[in-house]
Protein backbone atom coordinates (compact mmCIF):
# COMPACT_ATOMS: atom_id res chain seq x y z
CA UNK A 1 0.00 0.00 0.00
CA UNK A 2 2.80 2.39 1.06
CA UNK A 3 4.68 1.54 -2.12
CA UNK A 4 1.57 2.18 -4.19
CA UNK A 5 1.10 5.60 -2.52
CA UNK A 6 4.72 6.51 -3.23
CA UNK A 7 4.42 5.52 -6.87
CA UNK A 8 1.16 7.50 -7.16
CA UNK A 9 2.83 10.53 -5.56
CA UNK A 10 5.82 10.31 -7.94
CA UNK A 11 3.55 9.97 -10.96
CA UNK A 12 1.39 12.87 -9.81
CA UNK A 13 4.40 15.09 -9.28
CA UNK A 14 5.86 14.10 -12.63
CA UNK A 15 2.64 14.55 -14.58
CA UNK A 16 1.90 17.91 -13.01
CA UNK A 17 5.50 19.09 -13.25
CA UNK A 18 5.09 21.92 -15.71
CA UNK A 19 6.13 25.43 -16.64
CA UNK A 20 8.88 27.44 -15.04
CA UNK A 21 7.74 29.93 -12.43
CA UNK A 22 5.27 32.46 -13.86
CA UNK A 23 6.06 34.95 -11.07
CA UNK A 24 7.53 37.69 -13.29
CA UNK A 25 4.60 37.46 -15.73
CA UNK A 26 2.08 37.59 -12.89
CA UNK A 27 3.88 40.59 -11.41
CA UNK A 28 3.96 42.42 -14.75
CA UNK A 29 0.27 41.67 -15.32
CA UNK A 30 -0.60 43.00 -11.85
CA UNK A 31 1.37 46.18 -12.52
CA UNK A 32 -0.40 46.70 -15.86
CA UNK A 33 -3.82 46.26 -14.23
CA UNK A 34 -2.80 48.67 -11.44
CA UNK A 35 -1.61 51.29 -13.95
CA UNK A 36 -4.80 51.04 -16.02
CA UNK A 37 -6.95 51.10 -12.86
CA UNK A 38 -5.20 54.18 -11.52
CA UNK A 39 -6.20 56.05 -14.62
CA UNK A 40 -9.59 54.46 -15.37
CA UNK A 41 -10.98 54.07 -11.85
CA UNK A 42 -11.61 57.76 -11.05
CA UNK A 43 -13.47 58.18 -14.34
CA UNK A 44 -15.56 55.06 -13.79
CA UNK A 45 -16.28 56.15 -10.20
CA UNK A 46 -17.49 59.50 -11.50
CA UNK A 47 -19.71 57.74 -14.04
CA UNK A 48 -21.11 55.49 -11.27
CA UNK A 49 -21.80 58.59 -9.14
CA UNK A 50 -23.65 60.05 -12.12
CA UNK A 51 -25.64 56.84 -12.54
CA UNK A 52 -26.44 56.94 -8.81
CA UNK A 53 -27.68 60.54 -9.09
CA UNK A 54 -29.90 59.58 -12.03
CA UNK A 55 -31.28 56.58 -10.12
CA UNK A 56 -31.90 58.75 -7.04
CA UNK A 57 -33.76 61.27 -9.17
CA UNK A 58 -35.82 58.47 -10.73
CA UNK A 59 -36.60 57.09 -7.24
CA UNK A 60 -37.71 60.53 -6.06
CA UNK A 61 -39.96 60.94 -9.10
CA UNK A 62 -41.63 57.60 -8.45
CA UNK A 63 -42.10 58.36 -4.75
CA UNK A 64 -39.64 55.73 -3.46
CA UNK A 65 -37.42 56.32 -0.41
CA UNK A 66 -33.90 57.47 -1.23
CA UNK A 67 -32.26 56.92 2.15
CA UNK A 68 -32.84 54.30 4.84
CA UNK A 69 -33.25 55.31 8.51
CA UNK A 70 -29.83 56.18 10.04
CA UNK A 71 -29.77 53.10 12.30
CA UNK A 72 -26.05 52.58 11.89
CA UNK A 73 -25.42 56.18 12.97
CA UNK A 74 -27.62 55.59 16.01
CA UNK A 75 -25.38 52.65 16.97
CA UNK A 76 -22.37 54.96 16.77
CA UNK A 77 -24.04 57.83 18.63
CA UNK A 78 -25.26 55.57 21.45
CA UNK A 79 -21.97 53.63 21.60
CA UNK A 80 -23.93 50.39 21.54
CA UNK A 81 -22.12 47.16 22.32
CA UNK A 82 -23.25 44.94 19.44
CA UNK A 83 -21.00 41.96 20.12
CA UNK A 84 -23.94 39.88 21.32
CA UNK A 85 -26.54 40.75 18.70
CA UNK A 86 -27.51 37.92 16.34
CA UNK A 87 -26.26 37.93 12.76
CA UNK A 88 -29.63 38.91 11.34
CA UNK A 89 -29.33 42.17 13.26
CA UNK A 90 -25.93 42.85 11.76
CA UNK A 91 -24.23 46.18 12.14
CA UNK A 92 -25.75 48.75 9.77
CA UNK A 93 -23.39 51.19 8.07
CA UNK A 94 -23.48 54.86 8.99
CA UNK A 95 -23.07 56.49 5.59
CA UNK A 96 -24.97 58.43 3.00
CA UNK A 97 -25.41 55.59 0.50
CA UNK A 98 -28.76 55.89 -1.27
CA UNK A 99 -31.10 52.91 -1.08
CA UNK A 100 -31.39 52.73 -4.84
CA UNK A 101 -30.13 49.61 -6.59
CA UNK A 102 -27.93 50.47 -9.53
CA UNK A 103 -28.57 48.65 -12.76
CA UNK A 104 -25.66 46.48 -13.93
CA UNK A 105 -26.74 46.08 -17.53
CA UNK A 106 -24.24 46.41 -20.38
CA UNK A 107 -23.57 50.05 -21.02
CA UNK A 108 -24.20 51.04 -17.37
CA UNK A 109 -21.28 52.56 -15.49
CA UNK A 110 -21.83 49.94 -12.79
CA UNK A 111 -21.24 47.18 -15.38
CA UNK A 112 -17.90 48.77 -16.31
CA UNK A 113 -16.99 49.21 -12.63
CA UNK A 114 -17.65 45.53 -11.95
CA UNK A 115 -15.53 44.60 -14.97
CA UNK A 116 -12.58 46.61 -13.69
CA UNK A 117 -13.01 45.27 -10.14
CA UNK A 118 -13.07 41.72 -11.53
CA UNK A 119 -9.77 42.34 -13.32
CA UNK A 120 -8.27 43.68 -10.08
CA UNK A 121 -9.54 40.71 -8.07
CA UNK A 122 -8.20 38.35 -10.74
CA UNK A 123 -4.76 40.02 -10.64
CA UNK A 124 -4.72 39.80 -6.83
CA UNK A 125 -5.68 36.10 -6.92
CA UNK A 126 -2.96 35.34 -9.47
CA UNK A 127 -0.48 37.08 -7.23
CA UNK A 128 -1.68 35.12 -4.17
CA UNK A 129 -1.37 31.78 -6.00
CA UNK A 130 1.94 32.70 -7.57
CA UNK A 131 3.42 33.92 -4.28
CA UNK A 132 1.97 31.11 -2.15
CA UNK A 133 4.51 29.33 0.02
CA UNK A 134 2.31 26.26 0.35
CA UNK A 135 4.81 23.86 -1.29
CA UNK A 136 7.63 24.89 1.04
CA UNK A 137 5.21 24.79 3.97
CA UNK A 138 4.24 21.21 3.12
CA UNK A 139 7.87 20.09 3.04
CA UNK A 140 8.68 21.94 6.28
CA UNK A 141 5.54 20.73 8.02
CA UNK A 142 6.02 17.16 6.82
CA UNK A 143 9.56 17.12 8.17
CA UNK A 144 8.37 18.68 11.45
CA UNK A 145 5.60 16.08 11.63
CA UNK A 146 8.07 13.26 11.05
CA UNK A 147 10.42 14.67 13.73
CA UNK A 148 7.54 14.94 16.20
CA UNK A 149 6.42 11.41 15.37
CA UNK A 150 9.93 10.02 15.91
CA UNK A 151 10.27 11.87 19.23
CA UNK A 152 6.89 10.67 20.34
CA UNK A 153 7.70 7.07 19.42
CA UNK A 154 11.04 7.28 21.27
CA UNK A 155 9.39 8.81 24.35
CA UNK A 156 6.69 6.23 24.62
CA UNK A 157 9.24 3.59 23.64
CA UNK A 158 7.25 2.18 20.78
CA UNK A 159 9.69 2.92 17.94
CA UNK A 160 8.79 0.53 15.15
CA UNK A 161 11.55 -2.00 14.54
CA UNK A 162 10.73 -2.36 10.87
CA UNK A 163 10.24 1.27 9.96
CA UNK A 164 9.21 1.45 6.28
CA UNK A 165 11.52 4.40 5.55
CA UNK A 166 14.84 5.55 6.95
CA UNK A 167 15.58 9.18 7.89
CA UNK A 168 17.05 10.02 4.50
CA UNK A 169 14.08 8.52 2.72
CA UNK A 170 11.70 10.47 4.93
CA UNK A 171 13.51 13.70 3.97
CA UNK A 172 13.28 12.76 0.30
CA UNK A 173 9.59 11.98 0.70
CA UNK A 174 9.05 15.41 2.28
CA UNK A 175 10.74 17.03 -0.70
CA UNK A 176 8.74 14.95 -3.13
CA UNK A 177 5.53 15.87 -1.35
CA UNK A 178 6.54 19.53 -1.60
CA UNK A 179 7.24 19.08 -5.31
CA UNK A 180 3.85 17.49 -5.86
CA UNK A 181 2.13 20.34 -4.02
CA UNK A 182 4.18 22.87 -5.97
CA UNK A 183 3.13 21.19 -9.22
CA UNK A 184 -0.49 21.36 -8.08
CA UNK A 185 -0.12 25.07 -7.25
CA UNK A 186 1.24 25.71 -10.73
CA UNK A 187 -1.55 23.65 -12.29
CA UNK A 188 -4.11 25.82 -10.44
CA UNK A 189 -2.38 28.92 -11.78
CA UNK A 190 -2.24 27.58 -15.33
CA UNK A 191 -5.90 26.54 -15.28
CA UNK A 192 -6.97 29.94 -13.97
CA UNK A 193 -4.92 31.88 -16.54
CA UNK A 194 -6.16 29.66 -19.41
CA UNK A 195 -9.80 29.86 -18.34
CA UNK A 196 -9.54 33.60 -17.80
CA UNK A 197 -7.84 34.36 -21.12
CA UNK A 198 -10.89 34.84 -23.39
CA UNK A 199 -12.78 36.58 -20.58
CA UNK A 200 -9.93 39.08 -20.01
CA UNK A 201 -10.10 40.03 -23.67
CA UNK A 202 -13.86 40.57 -23.59
CA UNK A 203 -13.74 42.59 -20.35
CA UNK A 204 -10.93 44.77 -21.71
CA UNK A 205 -12.93 45.51 -24.87
CA UNK A 206 -16.10 46.12 -22.82
CA UNK A 207 -14.17 48.70 -20.80
CA UNK A 208 -12.69 50.31 -23.91
CA UNK A 209 -16.21 50.43 -25.40
CA UNK A 210 -17.47 52.08 -22.20
CA UNK A 211 -14.94 54.91 -22.48
CA UNK A 212 -15.36 55.31 -26.23
CA UNK A 213 -19.16 55.35 -26.22
CA UNK A 214 -19.26 57.74 -23.25
CA UNK A 215 -17.01 60.03 -25.28
CA UNK A 216 -14.18 60.16 -22.74
CA UNK A 217 -11.68 58.52 -25.07
CA UNK A 218 -12.93 59.59 -28.48
CA UNK A 219 -10.06 57.80 -30.20
CA UNK A 220 -12.15 56.77 -33.20
CA UNK A 221 -13.25 60.35 -33.92
CA UNK A 222 -9.69 61.54 -33.36
CA UNK A 223 -8.45 59.03 -35.92
CA UNK A 224 -11.18 59.95 -38.42
CA UNK A 225 -10.07 63.59 -38.15
CA UNK A 226 -6.41 62.62 -38.54
CA UNK A 227 -7.12 60.48 -41.60
CA UNK A 228 -9.27 63.21 -43.16
CA UNK A 229 -6.37 65.65 -42.70
CA UNK A 230 -4.10 63.08 -44.37
CA UNK A 231 -6.60 62.85 -47.24
CA UNK A 232 -6.65 66.63 -47.68
CA UNK A 233 -2.87 66.58 -47.74
CA UNK A 234 -2.59 63.88 -50.42
CA UNK A 235 -5.38 65.48 -52.49
CA UNK A 236 -3.96 69.01 -52.23
CA UNK A 237 -3.27 70.91 -55.44
CA UNK A 238 -0.16 73.08 -55.96
CA UNK A 239 2.84 73.54 -53.70
CA UNK A 240 1.36 76.19 -51.39
CA UNK A 241 -1.88 74.21 -51.05
CA UNK A 242 0.11 71.07 -50.30
CA UNK A 243 2.34 72.79 -47.71
CA UNK A 244 -0.65 74.31 -45.97
CA UNK A 245 -2.31 70.84 -45.87
CA UNK A 246 0.94 69.40 -44.47
CA UNK A 247 0.88 71.94 -41.61
CA UNK A 248 -2.78 71.15 -40.96
CA UNK A 249 -1.93 67.43 -40.87
CA UNK A 250 0.90 68.09 -38.40
CA UNK A 251 -1.48 70.03 -36.16
CA UNK A 252 -4.05 67.25 -36.33
CA UNK A 253 -1.35 64.72 -35.50
CA UNK A 254 -0.45 66.68 -32.35
CA UNK A 255 -4.14 66.67 -31.33
CA UNK A 256 -4.27 62.93 -31.91
CA UNK A 257 -1.18 62.41 -29.75
CA UNK A 258 -2.76 64.42 -26.93
CA UNK A 259 -5.94 62.39 -27.18
CA UNK A 260 -3.94 59.16 -27.16
CA UNK A 261 -2.01 60.20 -24.06
CA UNK A 262 -5.19 60.62 -22.02
CA UNK A 263 -7.15 57.72 -23.56
CA UNK A 264 -7.93 54.78 -21.29
CA UNK A 265 -8.03 52.37 -24.23
CA UNK A 266 -4.24 52.35 -24.65
CA UNK A 267 -3.68 51.39 -21.01
CA UNK A 268 -6.53 48.90 -21.02
CA UNK A 269 -5.26 47.17 -24.15
CA UNK A 270 -1.89 46.76 -22.40
CA UNK A 271 -3.69 44.47 -19.91
CA UNK A 272 -4.71 42.18 -22.76
CA UNK A 273 -1.20 42.19 -24.26
CA UNK A 274 0.34 41.42 -20.88
CA UNK A 275 -2.10 38.56 -20.38
CA UNK A 276 -1.06 37.04 -23.70
CA UNK A 277 2.55 36.98 -22.45
CA UNK A 278 1.43 35.52 -19.14
CA UNK A 279 -0.50 32.73 -20.88
CA UNK A 280 2.59 31.87 -22.93
CA UNK A 281 4.63 31.78 -19.74
CA UNK A 282 2.31 29.47 -17.80
CA UNK A 283 1.92 27.15 -20.77
CA UNK A 284 5.62 26.84 -21.60
CA UNK A 285 7.17 23.39 -21.52
CA UNK A 286 8.71 21.83 -18.40
CA UNK A 287 12.13 22.92 -17.43
CA UNK A 288 14.73 20.10 -17.88
CA UNK A 289 16.37 21.10 -14.59
CA UNK A 290 13.07 20.69 -12.79
CA UNK A 291 12.53 17.19 -14.16
CA UNK A 292 16.11 16.34 -13.20
CA UNK A 293 15.45 17.55 -9.65
CA UNK A 294 12.34 15.41 -9.45
CA UNK A 295 14.18 12.30 -10.70
CA UNK A 296 16.84 12.83 -7.99
CA UNK A 297 14.14 13.05 -5.32
CA UNK A 298 12.59 9.81 -6.57
CA UNK A 299 16.01 8.12 -6.58
CA UNK A 300 16.65 9.25 -2.99
CA UNK A 301 13.49 7.44 -1.98
CA UNK A 302 14.98 4.14 -3.11
CA UNK A 303 17.66 4.65 -0.47
Amino acid at each position, binding site marked *: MARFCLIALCLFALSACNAPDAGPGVKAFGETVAAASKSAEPEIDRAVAEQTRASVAAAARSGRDIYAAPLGCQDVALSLDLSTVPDDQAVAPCDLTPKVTLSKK*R*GDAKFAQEGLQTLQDYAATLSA*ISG*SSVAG*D*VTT*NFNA*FNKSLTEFAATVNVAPKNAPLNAEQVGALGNLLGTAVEARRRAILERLVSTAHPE*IRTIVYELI*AHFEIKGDDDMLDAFDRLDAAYGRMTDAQGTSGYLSAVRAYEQEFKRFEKQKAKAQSVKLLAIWRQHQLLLEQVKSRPDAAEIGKLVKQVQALKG
Partner: protein
Amino acid sequence: MKKNVIGMATYEELLIVGRAASAELEERADEEPDLSQKKALRRTARDIRSGMTKLRRAQYVELTTPRPGEPSTAGARLRAAVKAAKADLRKLEKAANALKIAANWLDRATKLFRIVA
Protein backbone atom coordinates in the same frame (compact mmCIF):
# COMPACT_ATOMS: atom_id res chain seq x y z
CA MET B 1 -15.14 35.62 -44.66
CA LYS B 2 -17.95 34.70 -42.31
CA LYS B 3 -21.30 36.22 -43.11
CA ASN B 4 -22.26 36.65 -39.50
CA VAL B 5 -20.72 39.89 -38.26
CA ILE B 6 -22.17 39.63 -34.75
CA GLY B 7 -19.46 38.54 -32.34
CA MET B 8 -16.01 39.69 -31.45
CA ALA B 9 -14.03 37.20 -33.58
CA THR B 10 -15.67 38.31 -36.80
CA TYR B 11 -15.28 42.01 -36.03
CA GLU B 12 -11.63 41.34 -35.37
CA GLU B 13 -11.27 39.33 -38.60
CA LEU B 14 -12.86 42.12 -40.65
CA LEU B 15 -10.64 44.75 -39.04
CA ILE B 16 -7.49 42.75 -39.67
CA VAL B 17 -8.48 42.17 -43.31
CA GLY B 18 -9.28 45.89 -43.70
CA ARG B 19 -5.95 46.82 -42.16
CA ALA B 20 -4.06 44.61 -44.61
CA ALA B 21 -6.06 45.92 -47.60
CA SER B 22 -5.51 49.56 -46.64
CA ALA B 23 -1.76 49.01 -46.18
CA GLU B 24 -1.56 47.20 -49.53
CA LEU B 25 -3.34 50.06 -51.33
CA GLU B 26 -1.08 52.67 -49.71
CA GLU B 27 1.94 50.64 -50.84
CA ARG B 28 0.61 50.46 -54.39
CA ALA B 29 -0.09 54.21 -54.31
CA ASP B 30 3.53 54.83 -53.30
CA GLU B 31 4.71 52.94 -56.37
CA GLU B 32 2.08 54.31 -58.79
CA PRO B 33 3.59 56.85 -61.23
CA ASP B 34 0.23 58.18 -62.44
CA LEU B 35 -0.95 60.95 -60.10
CA SER B 36 -4.67 60.47 -60.60
CA GLN B 37 -4.31 56.70 -60.08
CA LYS B 38 -2.22 57.37 -56.99
CA LYS B 39 -4.94 59.63 -55.53
CA ALA B 40 -7.64 57.12 -56.39
CA LEU B 41 -5.74 54.36 -54.58
CA ARG B 42 -5.27 56.56 -51.54
CA ARG B 43 -8.96 57.49 -51.50
CA THR B 44 -9.94 53.81 -51.59
CA ALA B 45 -7.51 53.09 -48.75
CA ARG B 46 -9.07 55.93 -46.72
CA ASP B 47 -12.56 54.62 -47.45
CA ILE B 48 -11.51 51.27 -46.06
CA ARG B 49 -10.06 52.94 -42.94
CA SER B 50 -13.22 54.96 -42.50
CA GLY B 51 -15.20 51.71 -42.76
CA MET B 52 -12.96 50.20 -40.11
CA THR B 53 -13.67 52.96 -37.58
CA LYS B 54 -17.40 52.56 -38.32
CA LEU B 55 -17.09 48.83 -37.75
CA ARG B 56 -15.23 49.31 -34.46
CA ARG B 57 -17.83 51.86 -33.36
CA ALA B 58 -20.60 49.37 -34.16
CA GLN B 59 -18.80 46.77 -32.07
CA TYR B 60 -18.50 49.21 -29.15
CA VAL B 61 -22.23 49.93 -29.39
CA GLU B 62 -22.89 46.19 -29.32
CA LEU B 63 -20.59 45.74 -26.32
CA THR B 64 -22.45 48.44 -24.38
CA THR B 65 -25.98 47.39 -25.33
CA PRO B 66 -27.94 45.15 -22.96
CA ARG B 67 -28.54 41.66 -24.30
CA PRO B 68 -31.76 40.22 -22.95
CA GLY B 69 -31.38 36.56 -22.11
CA GLU B 70 -27.59 36.66 -22.09
CA PRO B 71 -26.64 33.52 -20.10
CA SER B 72 -23.60 35.05 -18.38
CA THR B 73 -21.14 37.86 -18.89
CA ALA B 74 -17.36 37.56 -19.20
CA GLY B 75 -17.11 39.26 -15.79
CA ALA B 76 -19.36 36.63 -14.20
CA ARG B 77 -17.40 33.80 -15.79
CA LEU B 78 -14.08 35.28 -14.64
CA ARG B 79 -15.41 35.75 -11.09
CA ALA B 80 -16.44 32.06 -11.06
CA ALA B 81 -12.96 30.98 -12.25
CA VAL B 82 -11.29 33.14 -9.58
CA LYS B 83 -13.55 31.66 -6.90
CA ALA B 84 -12.71 28.09 -7.98
CA ALA B 85 -8.96 28.82 -8.01
CA LYS B 86 -9.13 30.39 -4.54
CA ALA B 87 -10.94 27.28 -3.25
CA ASP B 88 -8.29 25.00 -4.81
CA LEU B 89 -5.47 26.98 -3.20
CA ARG B 90 -7.26 26.89 0.17
CA LYS B 91 -7.45 23.07 -0.07
CA LEU B 92 -3.67 22.90 -0.58
CA GLU B 93 -3.04 25.27 2.31
CA LYS B 94 -5.34 23.19 4.52
CA ALA B 95 -3.26 20.10 3.71
CA ALA B 96 -0.08 21.93 4.71
CA ASN B 97 -1.72 23.15 7.92
CA ALA B 98 -3.03 19.69 8.77
CA LEU B 99 0.56 18.39 8.95
CA LYS B 100 1.51 21.30 11.18
CA ILE B 101 -1.45 20.72 13.49
CA ALA B 102 -0.67 16.98 13.67
CA ALA B 103 2.96 17.78 14.54
CA ASN B 104 1.82 20.18 17.29
CA TRP B 105 -0.46 17.52 18.79
CA LEU B 106 2.33 14.96 18.76
CA ASP B 107 4.65 17.47 20.49
CA ARG B 108 2.04 18.08 23.16
CA ALA B 109 1.45 14.35 23.59
CA THR B 110 5.20 13.80 23.92
CA LYS B 111 5.51 16.52 26.60
CA LEU B 112 2.51 15.14 28.43
CA PHE B 113 3.93 11.63 28.34
CA ARG B 114 7.27 12.88 29.75
CA ILE B 115 5.49 14.65 32.60
CA VAL B 116 3.35 11.62 33.42
CA ALA B 117 6.18 9.09 33.07
